[in-house]
């Protein structure tokens, strides 16, 4: 144990740890500010508690060598699938979807953990490949591993969370034996197909609220009273922060309830309003430095399963940030996806912490054979 710590002190991914802690502290502060003086104020304490849980999760994820995690990955994965099935039957229903387990005062969304379990299971599958190359067959098997919990989540139904599994399929695709140019060709094809599906979907299976979100996104000022209200108010929050912000606890859009869901989906709006351009860009810099660090780890990882884990962490976290920040600043339509480490919510925090911890783990163990 002592030697492990000593080794970690030498090879550990301290930059990632530092950035992670900065984000964790930032989240605790911003959730407090976003709930101050409202009925959600007690959530600030709870978020602080979750931060300690996250620190423990991080230590576990980064100190236990990832090959050990991978060794138990199938068991974890199997457990998660069982729990996901269980939640569909016994779960707590919120806004029409059964995605929560509630134990006393604590609620938990198993699909957040299932994401990590899927990544570990995928890594386990890659490890067991004798040739260590992801071909067509391997890609489809990896896709299946990710798709199973994703579909279970989709049937809860929780469309937003289900989409957060998709980046891992892209990660598998990206790590396949295909070269970059070929991948880009596939990406172009996918973009065309996606557009076709979108257009067809518009006239068939899209729900009215989904269409409205897209329309609102395309023309946010058309209806600032109705569908565009949230988008409009979020934009006012962001813009009115100006260069230096209105100060913590002093964001009027936040404090006077103009900003929707300020402590969850729109917490980036609070950050923009209260800490201004400086704070918002600083936060983005922390995020992107962390993600950049993951890309560095991708290059130095000692094996394919490590790379898969890191790229899963990278893609999942980037997806969250891109969708959430993009939504708040009006670059993507409204979706209910949290901002990693900042939005209130224990499941997402712990789940994404495990990804970061595992990515740091891969880096820390890059030399060990």
């Amino acid at each position, binding site marked *: 144990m002592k030697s492990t710590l000593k080794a970690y002190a030498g090879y550990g991914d301290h930059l990632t740890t530092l950035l992670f802690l900065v984000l964790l502290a930032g989240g605790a502060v911003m959730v407090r500010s976003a709930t101050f*003086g409202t009925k959600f104020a007690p959530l600030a304490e709870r978020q602080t508690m979750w931060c300690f849980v996250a620190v423990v999760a991080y230590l576990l994820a980064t100190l236990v060598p990832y090959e050990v995690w991978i060794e138990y990955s199938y068991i974890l994965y199997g457990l998660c699938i069982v729990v996901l099935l269980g939640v569909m039957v016994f779960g707590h229903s919120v806004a029409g979807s059964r995605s929560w387990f509630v134990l006393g005062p604590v609620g938990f969304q198993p699909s957040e953990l299932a994401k990590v379990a899927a990544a570990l299971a995928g890594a386990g599958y890659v490890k067991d490949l004798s040739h*260590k190359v992801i071909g067509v067959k391997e890609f489809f098997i990896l896709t299946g591993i990710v798709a199973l919990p994703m579909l279970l989540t989709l049937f809860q139904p929780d469309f937003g969370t289900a989409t957060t599994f998709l980046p891992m399929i892209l990660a598998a695709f*990206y*790590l396949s*034996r*295909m*070269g*970059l140019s070929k*991948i880009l060709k596939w990406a172009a094809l996918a973009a065309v197909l996606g557009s076709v599906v979108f257009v067809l979907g518009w006239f068939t299976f899209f729900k009215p609220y989904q269409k409205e979100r897209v329309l609102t996104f395309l023309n946010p000022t058309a209806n600032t*009273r*109705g569908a565009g*209200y949230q988008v409009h*108010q979020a*934009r*006012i*929050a*962001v*813009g*009115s*922060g*100006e*260069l230096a912000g209105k100060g913590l*606890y*002093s964001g*009027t*859009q936040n*404090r*006077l*309830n*103009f900003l929707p869901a300020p402590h969850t989906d729109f917490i980036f709006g609070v950050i*923009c309003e209260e800490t*201004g*351009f400086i704070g*918002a*860009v600083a936060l*983005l*810099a922390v995020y*992107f430095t962390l*993600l*950049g660090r993951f*890309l560095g780890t*991708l*290059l*130095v990882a*000692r*094996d*394919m399963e490590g*790379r898969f884990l890191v790229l899963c962490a*990278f893609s999942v976290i*980037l997806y969250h940030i*891109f969708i959430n*920040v*993009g939504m708040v*600043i*009006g*670059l993507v339509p409204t979706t209910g996806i949290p901002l990693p480490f900042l939005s209130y919510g224990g499941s997402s925090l712990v789940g994404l912490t495990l990804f970061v911890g595992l990515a740091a783990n891969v880096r820390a163990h890059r030399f060990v*054979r």
Partner: protein
Amino acid sequence: MNLPLDSGLPAKTAFLKVGLWTVFLLFALRLFYLQVLHGDYYRTLSENNYTRTIVLRSPRGMLLDRNGKVLCRNRVSFSLVLDAARGGSIDDTISAMRRILDFSMDRAQVDAALRRSPVASLAVLARDVPPSWLQKIEAHQQELNMLRIEMELRRDYPYGLYAGHALGYVGLLSPEDAERMKIKESDPFIEVGKSGVEKTANVRLMGVNGRRTAQVNSLGREIEDPKLRLPGVGIQEDPVPGKPLNLNLDMDLQTVLENAFAGETGSAVFMNPNTGEILAWVSEPEFNPNLFSGTVSASAWKDLVDDPTRPLLNRPIQGAYPPGSTFKPFVALVGLQEGLLSASTMFTCGGVWDYGGHPFHCWSKGHGTIDLITAIQNSCNIYFYHAGDRIGIERLDKWGRLFGLGQKTGVDLPGETSGVLGSPEWKAKHGLGPWYPGETLPVSIGQGYLTVTPLQLLSFYSTLATGGTRYRPRLISGPPEVLSTVDVSPEALGVVKEGLARVVSSGTGKGCQIPGVEVCAKTGTAQVVQASSGKNTYSLDKAERDHAWIAGFAPRSNPTVAFVVMVEHGGHGGDVGARIAKAGLEFLFLGKKPGEVIGPPKPPPVSPPPMAEPEIPTDLPPEVPPPLPEQPTPEGIPQGTILDQNGPAGVRP
């Protein structure tokens, strides 16, 4: 490295890195655009979000009678307002309103309310709503986002029906009013006088609203957060309350007269002849101005308009009637002034006079040969036919003008009509052909081409009382205003006064004798239909019966009051008219109330009459207040509280 690197990995990683930082740059540029380049724009939007201008409503001035009795005051009321500028759909709000508040309105009514409002996007949907709606709306903030309850001050007339036509009523400012009166206000609750002194003295009564910039949250609810002391919040402009208005009315006299009418239709006005101060103003049937202080239901309005007794008519100035025999003293005075008659001028009445082949009748079978004073006393038609024939229409017209007949009196009430003073000139002007001498005869006894308003006739008798000085009749307290002075000789005046005194002492006006006071008066019976001629008026249907008049002044020397009473289809002026006049004179000179029943026989409603549900404003003035549930209001002011002073300096919604 233990494993050979995937040959593609560095390129793939590099591509991701470029992509990653491109996203960062994109986000940072977007933030720069929103926060730095357009930050001040969004700051303004955010300030507009959290500040709201709250109107501090200025209370309308109270109305007081000459003894300081409160005729109109303000009470606190809650109203339902729709703010179309807030998020939500009107149709959804209407259905939520039906479900949650159990209050039904259709889309057309809401649109009409929006059109009627002087403030774009704000509409008053209902007034005098139960205070419990406040909690209901708060509890269903999501569905009822467009609605809010505002507190306003409403007019309250404690005497109810009494003097309703003099006081008038108020109504919400319409966009047309706002334009005409040049009122630029952002408050949908501005009330303006629509009739009576409420209209005449509107500017003085209105006051000026104040305003305050409040900090509100997204629900529009005002919040006080010391941690969020924001720029532009808390600026206050105090409201200027409307000034109270003292009226010349004596509400005790008014009450006596209203009661004396006992359901009859007509007018009564009592006035101080020496100043023009109007002491009582009765127009029966009265309407209750409480009904109007806002929004009458369409049906209540229709009932008023369709009522065959026309309660909305302000009879003393809007009713023009033939004056009948009350006109005879005027004819006598003109004859005396022009030297065509004297106290000793005699004519013979045989009950009928054949004038150019047409028989003209007296109401009596024959008064014999009588002098002028006796003719006045007995109201002999034949005498005055002769007198009128001798005087001629031109002289009657000339003197009529001098006394203000056929003209507006200039009383401080809106809607006065002028009546008709017939003359060759008037006939020609209206294309009615030449004036025939035979047409002068009916005019001489107050019929024919002649109608007056009760107030005009009162003005004439008042001028007799003062000896020629005409004062403008005034309901609003202030210095007397002399309209003109008619040059009448004391001798002529003495003769007419003697005639009038005899009417009361031993003629047709015995009904208004007051012990110890010499009353001068003349009764009149104006024919409504030609058919009634020569028949006993009481044998006719009520609608065909003659109008009963009595006009006069008292005491004979140094008169302190002039009066007119006119009862539509009342029969002889000497009966019902004299009875009503006597009630007023007894009160004034003897301090006696009829039958000494001093309590108010018709208890005036102090609080508004109960209604089944809040009323929806209509296009017409409107409104009947709903029930007043007995629960404390959120503001702690009990519902229906009467503000005996001019109300609080400002009412905060």
